[in-house]
């Protein structure tokens, strides 16, 4: 169908020869790998994730134990390529291990919120009526807060800790995802295929799983993918404020705050953890842009 519109609009002579059957997924993957940015971002993410997972293989230092006599060594010191922190711990080691916490606290909340938000939005969109009003008005209450501030309020009430930071961020992202899922659901349930499935005798669970969820998935996925960068920044921000990872756990945001006092002693060591937060957030943002672009076949 896409090719038909292209032909009528473009009117290029001989364009019929280009028409070949592509699967939707194949086309999307092709469009994805054709973007240099997408490949670069994927590369950075794979390196970050692998190095976090394989941290014990890449370094012999202990992320929690430092040598007092070697405090605040500069970047480029032998055996400490990224220097040492205020307690003499190897910064490179702490960055590697820190990736486990920092990436997880960025990604997990979006996944939790995607599941719960889709459930809420799809229920509201499918059932409509007072259920939808109740659910979505409840979601609206969370909309009245700037995201980071709501996360701060929730996690400070729950108390510091990674688990509570993840809960706080999940709650923050449920409201926007549920709204996206609601809009997507409302668009799908009025379409003819959905009506046809209903008339052919599909029961509610079948309709929801086989027809609805499958069709709103890509919309929710693209939106949620875009939130991971936001989530990584917010999670690091919470830790920076003392609401996320507790000392002495290695976590990028917390490391940045702990090193902040040594700003005038070893400025470039202080800058290291932030560089990794930036790289992770940037890679996820570029990746979500690329996925969005690759899925947007119609406008091509």
């Amino acid at each position: 169908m896409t090719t038909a519109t292209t032909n009528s609009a473009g009117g290029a002579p001989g364009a019929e020869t280009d028409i070949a059957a592509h699967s939707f997924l194949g086309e999307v993957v092709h469009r994805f790998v054709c973007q240099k940015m997408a490949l670069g971002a994927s590369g950075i993410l794979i390196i970050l994730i692998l190095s976090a997972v394989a941290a014990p293989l890449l370094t012999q230092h202990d992320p929690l134990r430092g040598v007092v006599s070697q405090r605040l060594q500069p970047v480029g010191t032998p055996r400490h390529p990224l220097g040492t922190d205020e307690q003499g711990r190897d910064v490179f080691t702490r960055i590697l291990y820190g990736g486990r916490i920092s990436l997880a606290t960025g990604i997990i909340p979006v996944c939790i919120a995607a599941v719960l938000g889709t459930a809420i939005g799809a229920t509201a969109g499918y059932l409509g009526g007072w259920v939808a009003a109740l659910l979505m008005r409840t979601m609206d209450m969370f909309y009245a807060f700037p995201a980071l501030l709501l996360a701060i309020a929730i996690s400070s009430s729950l108390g510091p800790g990674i688990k509570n930071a993840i809960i706080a961020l999940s709650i923050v992202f449920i409201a926007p995802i549920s709204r996206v899922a609601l809009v997507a659901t409302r668009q799908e349930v009025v379409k003819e295929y959905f009506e046809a499935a209903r008339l052919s005798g599909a029961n509610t669970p079948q309709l929801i799983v086989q027809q609805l969820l499958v069709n709103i998935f890509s919309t929710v996925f693209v939106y949620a993918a875009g939130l991971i960068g936001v989530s990584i920044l917010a999670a690091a921000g919470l830790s920076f404020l003392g609401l996320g990872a507790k000392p002495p756990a290695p976590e990028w945001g917390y490391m940045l705050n702990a090193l902040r006092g040594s700003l005038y002693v070893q400025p470039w060591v202080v800058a290291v953890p932030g560089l990794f937060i930036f790289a992770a957030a940037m890679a996820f943002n570029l990746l979500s842009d690329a996925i969005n672009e690759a899925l947007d076949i119609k406008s091509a």
Partner: protein
Amino acid sequence: MARTIVTRLLMAIPTLFGVSIVIFALMYILPGDPLVALLPPDAQPKDREALAKQIGLDKPAPVRYINWLKDLTRGDLGYSYTRKRDISDLIGTAFQNTVKLALAAAAFGIAMGLTLGTLAALVNGRWLDRAISMVAVVGLSVPVFWVAILLIIVFSANLRWLPASGMNSPDGDFLTSLKHMIMPVLASSLGTIGVTTRMTRASLLQMYGEDFVMTLRAKGLHNAQILLHVLKNAAPPIMTVAGLQVGFLLGGSVLVETIFAWPGMGQLIFQAISSRDLRIIQAAVLVIAITFVLANLAVDLLQTIVNPRLRRGV
């Protein structure tokens, strides 16, 4: 139009109630014990009960909510036992300082975003467009607290051009104030620059594809004249996004204020987190959330006035 404005104003009331419910729930219903921070570590259960009664925590939640709302309408945000002061006093000055920073950052960020976004749309597809789009993604991805630290490293520690912390000395003049503001404003506005640039570029490109642009070209208008028409038509979504940024900056300033020791709401919240004084955090969040709702309402109303098509209703 008056009717639309009144409807919009009325619609903000349930939102504000929602805000108050969320804050109240966070204060008293979550597992954390609000009394922990107020009591000495060796307090007996008897002391705890006495304090609970004194603050009114022994009453059922709905009663406490109503009492709390009554206090709020009188401008009473409670008393901070760690700072030994009324919370409304603490918030008063801090709020002014935060608004000052947020407005300056919003003005700078939106102006930059509009300029860069327009430029990118005009050279669509060329290297400058790609460079600007990259700058926008960087703005969205960069941790503000890291940028703040980098700025201090470069401009305070090395070049010694700008002060690393504080707002102004008591006897400071305008120039000193300005110097104190440059780095906090730069650091806070990056996200706004990113969002506004992307939105401006996308809306302008969409408008350039509309039929009326071709009509204008056919009539023989210059590119600059066409740009004016396009900008006017692309304005509503850009205004919405830019307006939201003012509110976000109020809330997002926590990290930047903490680093530059800017005496605003963010620093107040950071200190309250360190001393586990939940009441200050909740009060500060409440005040910012109310401002956020009102700022969004103001943008909404402004849109209604500027764009006649929105006047007919929701």
